[in-house]
């Protein structure tokens, strides 16, 4: 059955920042479905207080048959994940949702905070296809910058920006992007981060006629398109099926984008 859990040992844990860790799992690419960059997994933590939440696939290593998820510790569930050790087990079902499409040659990837997670696997893929990729890595402060080293190793241009100026450009991802666009040309953009940031980036990319693909987050229960929890106004699209990646044209139709979302009870 497609939606059955694979119970997998945590093979490795990479401490990315003070609040972000990457968990690595063996993933039989032949047998299990190969994830595409932008897709997500449902992660079931049955150790202690059982719960399950969506996480993007940040690493897809076809050669070594490994995948990774990158988790920011922001609440009970993610805190429990952070307390796990190598060898502990998690239930994983997926991959779910649509994915980023590689339809440009000069790509800008813009991510804020843990929003870098889905961008990472895409950038890796785009580089293997010999595309030009610039990445804007943004965070509140220096010690929260995610994957800067990974990106440099991949040979992409990395432009950091921190709100407080402790690393790279001082200011928001939006300002950094405006600055970059003055001197560089792109024919595609992928974006993931806090929605308020994505909204700002959306406006900038629209002004510059750069088609974008945006990774959205909404509260999820089933992830298989039936509970209705993740639907967005006014199109009714399910973020778990028609998303989580939406094109600029689609984003224009999502009236709640950057405005509001619903919690687990459906309250805005």
């Amino acid at each position, binding site marked *: 059955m*497609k939606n059955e859990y694979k119970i997998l040992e945590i093979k490795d844990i990479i401490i990315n920042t003070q609040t972000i860790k990457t968990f690595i799992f063996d993933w039989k690419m032949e047998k299990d479905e190969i994830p595409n960059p932008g897709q997500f997994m449902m992660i079931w933590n*049955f150790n202690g207080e059982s719960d399950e939440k969506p996480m993007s696939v940040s690493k897809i290593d076809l050669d070594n048959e490994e995948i990774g998820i990158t988790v920011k510790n922001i609440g009970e569930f993610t805190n429990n994940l952070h307390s796990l050790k190598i060898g502990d*087990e998690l239930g994983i079902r997926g991959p779910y949702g649509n994915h980023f499409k590689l339809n440009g040659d000069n790509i800008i990837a813009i991510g804020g905070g843990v929003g870098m997670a889905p961008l990472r696997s895409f950038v890796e893929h785009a580089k293997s296809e010999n595309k030009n990729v610039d990445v804007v890595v943004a965070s509140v402060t220096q010690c929260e910058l995610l994957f800067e080293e990974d990106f440099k190793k991949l040979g992409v241009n990395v432009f950091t920006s921190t709100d407080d100026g402790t690393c790279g450009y001082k200011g928001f991802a939006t300002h950094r992007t405006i600055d970059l666009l003055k001197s560089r040309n792109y024919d595609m953009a992928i974006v993931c981060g806090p929605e308020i940031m994505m909204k700002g980036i959306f406006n900038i990319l629209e002004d510059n006629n750069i088609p974008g693909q945006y990774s959205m987050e909404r509260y999820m229960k089933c992830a298989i398109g039936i*509970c209705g*929890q993740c*639907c967005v106004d006014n199109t009714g699209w*399910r973020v778990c099926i028609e998303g989580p990646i939406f094109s600029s044209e689609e984003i224009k139709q999502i009236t709640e984008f950057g405005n509001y979302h619903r919690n687990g009870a*459906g309250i805005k």
Partner: protein
Amino acid sequence: MLNMELCGIKLENPLLLAAGILGTTAASMNRVLDAGAGGVVTKSFSKEPNKGYNNPTIAEVEGGIINAVGLSSPGVELFKEELSLINRERKTEKSGKNNPNKIAIASIYGSTPDEFNYVASKIGDLIDMIELNISCPHAMVGYGSAIGQCPDNTFDVVNAVKNNVSVPVLTKLTPNVTDIKEIALSAQEAGSDGITVINSLGPGMKIDINAGVPILKNKFGGLSGPAIKPIAIKYVYDLYEDLDIPIVGVGGIRTFEDVVEFLYAGSSAVQIGTAIMYEGLEIFSQINHNLIKFMEDKGFKSIDEMVGYAH
């Protein structure tokens, strides 16, 4: 050709969206209407907001899923906003489209007749029908099937609501009883305009043998999907003989053949839920399309002629 009436309300076709599937927002219900459903039943809601159970809320099993979403909803006050935005035939000030012969049915729940009545009284002008959920197999103590497993409680809830609303009322029954006839007759006697059968079956459980624990956070949940269809068909078939009011059949419908089977057994209309997971939203237009072909082949001129055909 598929036009029909349910409790005096005109419907473009007999396919309705089942309660609890894609029924949390007006936008998603409008999408289901656009995809070809004749009507939608909302996610069940009550007086107060309810968070429901934590994940995992759904586990796939052979022939369907078990779920314990736990009746999560924002409560009637906030949900009224969504109801007012559904593009049904009798459009409200807010809803955009006038969709001829498309209807919205509000599924409500509560723990007492008063609570049901309170919720029903708040929404009468925003919807075309009310469905009373007295049959959820994994609801909190005192809710759901705790009511629908007792003929007297069923009577009291239906009676309370019927005395106060003008729209038709469907009563949704649980299959998890020894004598469904007694309960259905109770609902009919209390004035219910129709019966919906069945809610999810069980409850059931799935243990992940590698994790070594039940998957659902609530440990158990209601079984739905193709596996429960034969049981639903039998209930519809039996109740068709016992009742004077129309039956809405639900449980495991995935193809037009399933719909025909439900009509033949005695349902006037049907609801579709879990199969959306396999077929996508196209399921509604596909079934409508194939149903018309089937009717032409067999020489049926209306849905009505097919209802109870197997008796």
